[in-house]
């Protein structure tokens, strides 16, 4: 079940000049007609993908990645127009194809897999006919197509393909659906396979499975792959070559490891530095940010597209479009000042100091059971936690593990079951928000994941903040206004922002407003529920810096929920790993990452594709998180545990074992033994090839 993988392998063809490319995008220009005016989104995009090669496109949202991908299959929105350039797939220009030719092309030469497999299949039709359809279109007879469909599902490692074919899409899990979509995409053995954020929205463990699958399938097809992902780790682990896009232009291109390790464009540099890489902690330094925002679509950009946000920009950059500088070895960069790249400063060391304070919040035996169509569904089971003054507690776990429920229980949004106790500053807290005193309300606030829905879009920023200040502090109008000004200043919101409505703000600014609101009443505790997962990396960095600074200044405690372990590692002082409503492991961040870990933590850690190209231990988890309504016996993790001990794990609840001071693991295997086992796996990682996993077959249990 365990094996290792080096994400930079395999790299078969770097530049195969003699072979005609599977995909050649040449000077592609695309415009969207908005209110009658065509606005350019792609400004002369060019790149080639060789047969069998995987090419990744990276960049912030809005930079034109997806438009490029969809143009490659000529599937643009109704208002999209290809205004220039060509797209050649397998030598034929798809921009000049007739409708019939295009259909034939899509049926036989190109396929696409995209984000959100849940909506990619027709909900009204069983999976079978939908897969069969992909083969029927190739001219197969009904029986042939049915056989092919069965094989196709086997090929994507679905254990019981016949049963899956008889299911409706909603009866399958997200990972399973993505497999089905991939199976359909591969039906015609396409020359070009476009993957647009294929794993976004899936849990890290599922993401790892899907990526493994794609990687494995590459070995038996000759398809060229064009991969779009905002997750740079995914790109690095999957792609041979990478193009970095900004404002509708490829600004840098080259070998994946080269790009990630030695970026040669200011934008790429900024992008990579914004990530908390290589186990970076807030105590070491703050994250780099890219100031400013993406130019609007259709903006007139006479010079370098990145000029407004570039540290190195000169007058030349504003007026003269930079040339594509060939750096040799297939690398190129569009920059006037490649030589000055090393000048770009690393951020100064962060001033954030880890804190050791009094316990602010104590959670004892908190459970939360929902009633769902007559069944009890325990979402939290006997959670004990404490949170110190000025401390950040990271909560991690797959979706459905109870992270958000715990946060909501703390906040009193979902009152926990009777018996659990919440203590704030040694005072017992009412479980329901409506029963809490205004001081208690003021003491705990939240920052939500999605700033769009977190802010009332009908209100101005000023009104949003003033209302919170007044309500939480009881200040009068004048005093509240003053406090709003101070707050805004603190959050680096200009007074101008205060009179705008959220819809007029960018995502990063909105999240700042949301944070400002949370801090309106000087809270003791702020729950951050995936506060950066909807944001681009450069904005994420700014928000994380801001949170760290605020905490340092005000000694606020955070409960920080995130699925991004890099982010959690950066910000959290302690980490709690949750599974099925239970805390499986808790400890100081460094301890948790260093190990020995709980096998579940181990799996989570190994599932994360690394931006840094480090070979990582890969632990596979079977299937998905079970339904909390019927938790497994014994250790709830045992059915998926790679280190499962029969007769023990499935019978007895594991004990909480203290590994080191404050580092506790809920496992039957003694810590020492775990340490040995995990070290062994890590060692094997260097030796074993990826494809060993190809045999593993995943069950199709519905969610």
């Amino acid at each position, binding site marked *: 079940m365990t094996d290792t993988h080096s994400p930079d392998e395999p790299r078969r063809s770097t530049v195969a000049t003699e072979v005609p490319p599977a995909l050649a995008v040449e000077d592609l220009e695309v415009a969207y007609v908005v209110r009658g005016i065509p606005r350019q989104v792609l400004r002369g995009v060019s790149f080639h993908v060789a047969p069998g090669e995987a090419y990744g496109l990276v960049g912030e949202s809005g930079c034109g990645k997806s438009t490029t991908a969809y143009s490659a*299959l000529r*599937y643009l929105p*109704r208002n999209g127009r290809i205004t220039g350039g060509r797209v050649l797939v397998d030598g034929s220009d798809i921009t000049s194809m007739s409708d019939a030719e295009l*259909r*034939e*092309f*899509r*049926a*036989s030469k*190109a*396929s*696409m897999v*995209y984000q*959100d497999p849940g*909506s*990619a*299949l*027709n*909900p*009204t*039709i069983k999976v079978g006919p*939908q897969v069969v*359809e*992909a083969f029927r*279109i190739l001219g197969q007879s009904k029986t042939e197509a049915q056989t092919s469909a069965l094989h196709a599902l086997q090929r994507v490692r679905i254990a019981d393909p016949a049963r899956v074919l008889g299911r*409706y899409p*909603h009866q399958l899990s997200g990972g399973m659906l993505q497999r089905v*979509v991939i199976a*359909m995409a591969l*039906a015609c053995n396409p020359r070009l396979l476009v993957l647009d954020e294929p794993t976004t929205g899936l849990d890290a463990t599922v993401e790892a499975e899907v990526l493994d699958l794609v990687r494995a399938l590459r070995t038996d097809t000759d398809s060229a792959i064009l991969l779009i992902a905002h997750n740079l780790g995914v790109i690095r682990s999957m792609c041979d070559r990478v193009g970095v896009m900004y404002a509708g232009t490829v600004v840098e291109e080259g070998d994946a490891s080269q790009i990630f390790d030695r970026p040669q464009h200011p934008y790429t540099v900024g992008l990579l530095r914004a990530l908390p890489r290589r186990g970076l902690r807030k105590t070491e330094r703050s994250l780099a940010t890219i100031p400013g925002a993406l130019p609007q679509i259709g903006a007139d950009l006479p010079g370098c597209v990145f000029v407004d946000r570039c540290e190195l920009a000169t007058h030349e950059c504003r007026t003269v479009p930079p040339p594509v500088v060939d750096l040799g070895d297939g690398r190129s960069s569009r920059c006037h000042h490649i030589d000055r790249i090393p000048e770009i400063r690393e951020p100064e060391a962060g001033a954030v100091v880890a804190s050791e304070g009094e316990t602010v919040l104590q959670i004892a035996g908190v459970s939360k059971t929902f009633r769902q*169509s007559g069944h009890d569904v325990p979402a939290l089971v006997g959670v004990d936690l404490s949170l110190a003054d000025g401390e950040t507690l990271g909560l991690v776990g797959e979706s459905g593990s109870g992270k958000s429920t715990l946060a909501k229980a703390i906040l009193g949004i979902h009152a926990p079951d009777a018996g659990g106790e919440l203590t704030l500053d040694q005072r017992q807290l009412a479980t329901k928000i409506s029963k809490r005193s205004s001081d208690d309300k003021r003491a705990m606030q939240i920052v939500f994941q999605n700033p769009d829905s977190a802010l009332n879009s009908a209100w101005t920023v000023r009104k949003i903040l003033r209302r919170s200040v007044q309500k939480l502090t009881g200040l009068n109008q004048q005093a509240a206004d003053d406090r709003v000004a101070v707050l805004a200043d603190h959050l680096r919101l200009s007074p101008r922002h205060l009179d705008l409505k959220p819809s007029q703000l960018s995502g990063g600014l909105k999240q700042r407003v949301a944070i400002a609101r949370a801090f309106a009443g000087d809270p003791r505790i702020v729950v951050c529920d995936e506060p950066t997962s909807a944001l681009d990396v450069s904005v994420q960095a700014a928000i994380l810096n801001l949170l760290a600074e605020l905490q340092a200044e005000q000694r606020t405690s955070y409960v920080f929920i995130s699925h991004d372990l890099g982010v959690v590692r950066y910000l959290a002082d302690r980490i709690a790993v949750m599974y099925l409503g239970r805390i499986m492991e808790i400890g100081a961040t460094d301890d948790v990452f260093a190990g020995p870990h709980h096998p579940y933590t181990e799996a989570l850690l190994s599932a994360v594709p690394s931006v840094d190209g480090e070979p990582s231990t890969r632990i596979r988890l079977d299937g998905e998180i079970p339904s909390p309504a019927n938790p497994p016996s014994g250790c709830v993790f045992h059915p998926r545990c790679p280190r499962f001990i029969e007769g023990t794990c499935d019978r007895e609840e594991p004990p909480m074992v203290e590994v080191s001071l404050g580092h506790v693991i809920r496992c039957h295997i003694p810590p020492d033994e775990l340490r040995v086992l995990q070290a062994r796996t890590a060692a094997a990682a260097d030796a074993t090839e990826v494809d060993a996993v190809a045999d593993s077959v995943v069950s199709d249990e519905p969610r």
Partner: protein
Amino acid sequence: MLPYILRRLVLALVTLWLLATIVFLVANVLPNDVGRTILGPFAPQETVDALNAELGTDDPMLAQYGRQMKALVTFDYGDSYQSKRPVWGILSGPLWRSAKLAFYALVMTVPIAVAAGMFAARKRDRLSDRTIVLAGLASSSIPEFVTGSILAVVFGVAFGWFPVLASFPPGTSVVSQLRFLFLPALSMSVVYFGYIARMMRASTIRALEADYTRTAVMKGLSQSQVMRTHVLRNAMGPTISVISVQVGYLFGGIIGVEKVFNYNGLGQTVLIAAKAKDLPLLQASVVIIGIVYMLSTLLADIVIAWLNPRARLELGS
């Protein structure tokens, strides 16, 4: 599915009870003096009192309400004030005739309107789309009685293609009945067309923009295959649901059409009853329409569940 239907039926009974209560309030409580309502302002008080005593409308409200509820349960709304015959006996024939007419109109409209809506969605924002949208808007904007009058004159009188009267003599063959009912059905059809086509267009556009449609297109399916296999099924659900909710509203149109074509359906009966202040008849009619409405929404939900397994799941929970 079955438990779902049963639960829906129970809920329908609750709704029915509320409906009957509302009707009771409107007809008996709000006017305060039913006898006066019927006899008018000039009638001498003794006459009014006598009538109230005769109708039992001078009883305590609670007693009257009890009678109404009993009527609802026993399906016995007593005798019509006007013709002194049992209300259900009067209503059953017309109800059946109206149902026939409405069903005919629907059968006539649905395929065309669905096709037009899908076509318009496909040609979104082009001339053909705008034409269909505008035609739909116009057709659902002209009251049925106006359309009906025009159709009667053009096709019944001027061209003589169809009978101008919908009342067919007893014993008319089914085929011949269809001919009799053609013009009234068409007048209702014109209004339905607008509703259904517009609704279908909107839900087709939603379906066309859905990811699964993109998947289908990317498979290389032709546009007509995509429409037939993937879009139609998904777009039908919302359309059906909206239409079923409109049943009560559409019934208003039948009254006008029946008047124009002298068709003795529920609409005519109700209209006459209304003018005669025949309260039992009116109350019973409202309850009947309520039942029809609830059955049609139930039927619609079942059809939707059949079309869309996900909806089936939601219904199940």
